[in-house]
Structure formats: C-alpha cells, structure tokens
C-alpha cells in the first residue's frame, strides 16, 4: 500500500516533466503553427497571431503560462483550429476513440488469450503450428493492409457493413477488427510463452501429483500466472488503443483523437500536442498502476513484500 501511495505521489511530477518535454520537443521542430494557413498570412497578421497566443514570449514564460492554465483545467486554444479549445477537441473526439480502442482491447484479449492458451496446450502438434502461424500472421500484417481489405470484402463486395464514418455500433465493427487483430496476436504470443514458463514451475507438478484433472491444473493453476506478462503488456496497450489509432481513424473516417495525435505534430499545433501527450501519459501511468494492483490478484506471491 505504501508503495502504491508513493507511486501516486510521483505521478504529478512525472506528468509535469513529460509535459515539459513535449512542450520543448514540438517547439524544436522547424516551422510554426501558422505556416500552413489556407492563405499565407501577411507578416503583420502573423505577428498579431503570435502575440495573441503569446508565442513571442520566451519559452519559460510560455511554459509558466501553460502551467497556470493547467491549474485551472484549461489547456488553451488549439493553434490550428483556433475557435476550439484543446479540451473541447479532446472531449469531442475521445468517445469514438474510446469505443474503438475499448472494443479492440476486448477483441485482443478475447481472441488472443484463448488462442495462446490453446496453442500452448497443444504444443508441438499440428494444431499448435496452425494457430501459431495465424498468430504470427496477425502480428505481421499492418493495419493499413487489413483495413482496406476488410472494407473491400465486407463493405463493398458483400455490403454487410458500412464502409466508414461513425454512428451505429455497426460502424465500429471493421475499425475494431482491423485495429484489434495485431494486438490479439501480441497477446496470444505472450499467453503462449507465459504458459510454457509456468508449466515448468514446481507448484504445477504438485498440482498434477495430487491428482487434479489436467483441465483444473491448466486453467486454475497455470493460466493466472501465465497471464502476468499479458497483464503488464495490457497497460501500455490499452493506453495506446484508447488514445486512438491514426491509421484506422483515417481509413474509416472516424472523428477520433488518434488523427489529431499525428496531425497536430505535423501542423505544429503546440497546445494540442501537449494536451494529447498529457492525456496519453496520464492514461499510461494510471493504467500501469492498475496493472500492478492486478498483479497482486493474479500472483499471490507478490501480495506481501
């Protein structure tokens, strides 16, 4: 508990360092947020804009200003879409990204864990080779190949699902699948390796020796421990998924925040980048904390000490 408290106390300073890093990083890139306006701004307008958003001040002043805003829960206005604040844009885009990311996470676990478990149990037989091959295939094909192919078959040829856009749950199916398959493959590999790792442990031999049926040994005793690597990978994976995927949102024209992650760094939208980085980092740190709690539940040995 003490350790947990310490991690919680460490989170705000860590987040501050991360925001400072992101803050400096985007400003190090050449060009500025007003370079890509529809019409090239005249020098006067550009200067006025710089002044309006305090970009003419030294960096440390700007950062202090940002901290002041942050204390009030205000991340500032997006420098590209200046009529919207960063929090507004995130609030509008987040639901779609959360839905697709959450769906992909469930798909990854629901498909990956059983597949990995099955291939581990059938180790060395043809079922193992078949499933392992499918798993590798999932890990090796990028989403920007899976996505168009799925859309081609299920949306255009068969007409079962919409090609893109966002609205009904049906709209989420193709994005979720094309995003989740890769992660399902990763999870399956981790589960498979975790099962091999646990199968060698003494307590598994004990469980078998006392005459437990094989299913009970594998599911009740081996699986929870085999899932430890999966749990520790789940934290970063979920943070990744929930903050949206550029490829999938771009392919299916989904109004999420994954597109912003890439576009705002390309557009030098300083405030937007820092806001998104903060969101991602906060999610990541929080989820990692959650994973550590989960560890205690999966592995009794880590509960004390």
């Amino acid at each position, binding site marked *: 508990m003490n350790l947990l408290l310490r991690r919680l106390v460490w989170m705000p300073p*860590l987040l501050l*360092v*991360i925001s400072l*890093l*992101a803050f400096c*990083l*985007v400003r*190090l*890139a*050449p*060009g500025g947020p007003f370079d890509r306006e529809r019409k090239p701004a005249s020098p006067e307008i550009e200067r006025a804009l710089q002044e309006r958003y305090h970009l003419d001040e030294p960096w440390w002043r700007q950062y202090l200003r940002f901290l002041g805003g942050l204390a009030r829960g205000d991340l500032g206005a997006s420098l590209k879409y200046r009529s919207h604040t960063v929090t507004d844009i995130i609030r509008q885009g987040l639901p779609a990204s959360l839905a697709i990311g959450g769906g992909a996470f469930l798909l990854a676990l629901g498909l990956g864990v059983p597949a990995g478990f099955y291939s581990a149990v059938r180790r060395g037989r043809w079922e193992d*080779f078949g499933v392992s091959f499918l798993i*590798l*295939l999932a*890990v*090796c*094909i*990028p989403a*920007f*190949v899976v*996505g*168009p*192919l799925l*859309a*081609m078959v299920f949306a*255009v*040829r068969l007409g079962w699902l919409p090609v893109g856009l966002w609205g009904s749950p049906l709209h989420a199916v193709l994005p979720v699948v094309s995003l989740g398959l890769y992660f399902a493959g990763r999870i399956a590999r981790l589960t498979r390796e975790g099962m091999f790792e646990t199968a*060698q442990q003494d307590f598994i031999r004990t469980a078998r020796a006392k005459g437990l049926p094989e299913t009970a040994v594998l599911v009740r005793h081996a699986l929870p421990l085999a899932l430890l690597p999966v749990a520790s990978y789940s934290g*970063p994976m979920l943070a990744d998924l929930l*903050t949206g995927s*550029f*490829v999938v949102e771009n392919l299916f024209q989904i109004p999420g925040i994954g597109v912003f*992650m*890439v576009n705002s*760094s*390309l557009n030098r939208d300083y405030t937007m*980048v820092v806001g*998104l*980085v903060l969101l*991602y*980092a906060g999610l*990541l*740190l929080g989820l990692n904390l959650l994973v550590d709690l989960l560890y205690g539940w999966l592995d009794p040995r880590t509960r004390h000490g």
Partner: protein
Amino acid sequence: MAEPALQPAGRPPRTPAGRAWRRFRRNRPASLGAVALVSLVALVALLPWLPLPEPDAMTELQFAAPRAGHWFGTDLLGRDLLARVLHGTRVSLLVGCVGAAVSLVIGVCWGLIAGYAGGRLDNLMMRVVDVLYALPSIIFVIVLMTALNGLLARWQNAGMDGDLAGTLQLTGMFAGLGAVSWLTMARIVRGQVLSLRRRPFVEASRVLGAGHAHVIFRHILPNVLGVVLVYLALTVPSVVLYESFLSYLGLGIQPPQASLGSLIAEGASQINPIRVYWWLLVFPAGTLVTTLLCLNFVADGLRDALDPKEA
C-alpha cells in the same frame, strides 16, 4: 564399460553455444526461416547484377497485370513491380537491421550502466526511461523526420547532390527509429545485470581482484547476450513495421525510392471497387509478411535455443 552405449548418436556439443546451435538447427521453422532470410539477403545484395529493369524506369505500360517480363506487374507509372519490391525489400531490411542495431547499442549501454552502477544513478536512469515511455514515440519521430526532411530540402536547393540527400535521409531515419525503440532493451538488460551482479561467480571474480571492465566484459556481457539476441531479433520486425507506418504517413522513404511499407501504402491507396489492381498490394504485402514471418521464426528459434532452462 557400458558407458559408450549410453552416449547418444553423435557427440553432444560441449560449449553452450554449440548446444544452442544444435537446438536451433533441429527447430525446423527456425532453420527454414533462417535459410529463407539468408537467401533473401543474398538476392537483394546481388540486385545490381540481376537482369531487372531499373526500379524507377517508367514505361508506357500502366497497371499491367503480372505477365512474362513483368512477373509482378507494373504500377501507375509503368514501373516494374518486381524490381521495386526487391529494392524496397533491401531498404526495409536495411532500416530494420540498422534501426535495431542503434537501439541495441543505446539500450545495452544504458541498461548495463544503470544495472551495474545501481543506487541513485540506476534510479535516475530508469526514471528517464519511464518518462520517455510515456511520451508517444510518434511525436518524437515526426518532429525528427520533419526537421530532417526540411533541412535536406533546403540543402538540396542550395545545390546538394540528390543521392547524398537520400542517404542522409535514410541515416536520419535509422537514428530516429533506433532512438525510439531502445527503451525495452534497456529495461531488459538492466534487470539481467542487476541479478547477475549479485551472483556468486561475479562476486568471486571481484574478490579475486578483477576490475570493473573485466567483470563487465568477461562475466556480465556474455551472460546477457542470449536475452539481448532474442530481443534484438524481435526488434528488427517491429522496426520494419514502424518504418512502413512512417511511409504510410508519407514521412518515411521519399519517392522515387521505395520501401516495402511505401509500396504497400501505394497499393492500399489503389484499392477501389471499380478496378482491382491486386498485384500492387499482394506482392509487396506478401513479401513483407514473409520476411517478418521468417524474422519471427528465427527469433522464436533463438529464444528456445538459448533458453538455459532447456539444456
């Protein structure tokens, strides 16, 4: 007397490396993958001497389906896809290997220093890794690549050679991809070093008066090597995939050069319900998937072969 009979057929190798090599050879997917990889590398290394059209030689033959003379078909500009795929494979493999090597150097040094020094330095170095973990790597890469591409465009306007610019761009990409993929390597190495440092044989060596350099190079590094090798083999495919993502964003390899990723992105953009130019997607994607499959088979085989528990 009965001893010779107990010996298995063929003398068992004496060194750990020998045992690992033997186990690797017996792993059929892994050795097949290794053979396929070596032949692929040989093929792309011999590219200049192969009877193929230039990868960026345009012809009148647009979107030709695969046929004799153009085994993989041609693209929008009538370029031979087979030549482009092979050149792209060369670029992708190069990016993967060099990127992984950069991440190896940074990760191993970082992890080794942190784990071996321990204490406050270790704490500080690992907090840095934590912070970098929480920074989305794509932002770092975008900033780096746009800065580099901008700089190169300016230099080219000032009269720099195009080939040199291409080479520099590639080098920058190596550095950038390596710079975002060393974190896990550093964590793994640091964990290993931390546990090795307290092992009796390391302490014995210290007591006998061995210096730090001796301990690190004689005792620690050789023992970390197995884990590092396995993780390295997994880094290569992930760097190749990352490069293909960058190419998809238009930040990777600049045309007319191509990588497997940029070819796939090009092919994927040609998917439309009216006319299907399947070869534009199938051949580059097939090559990428095959390469990655081989790399993964080899990595898995290495892990099984180097696992000390299965000796």
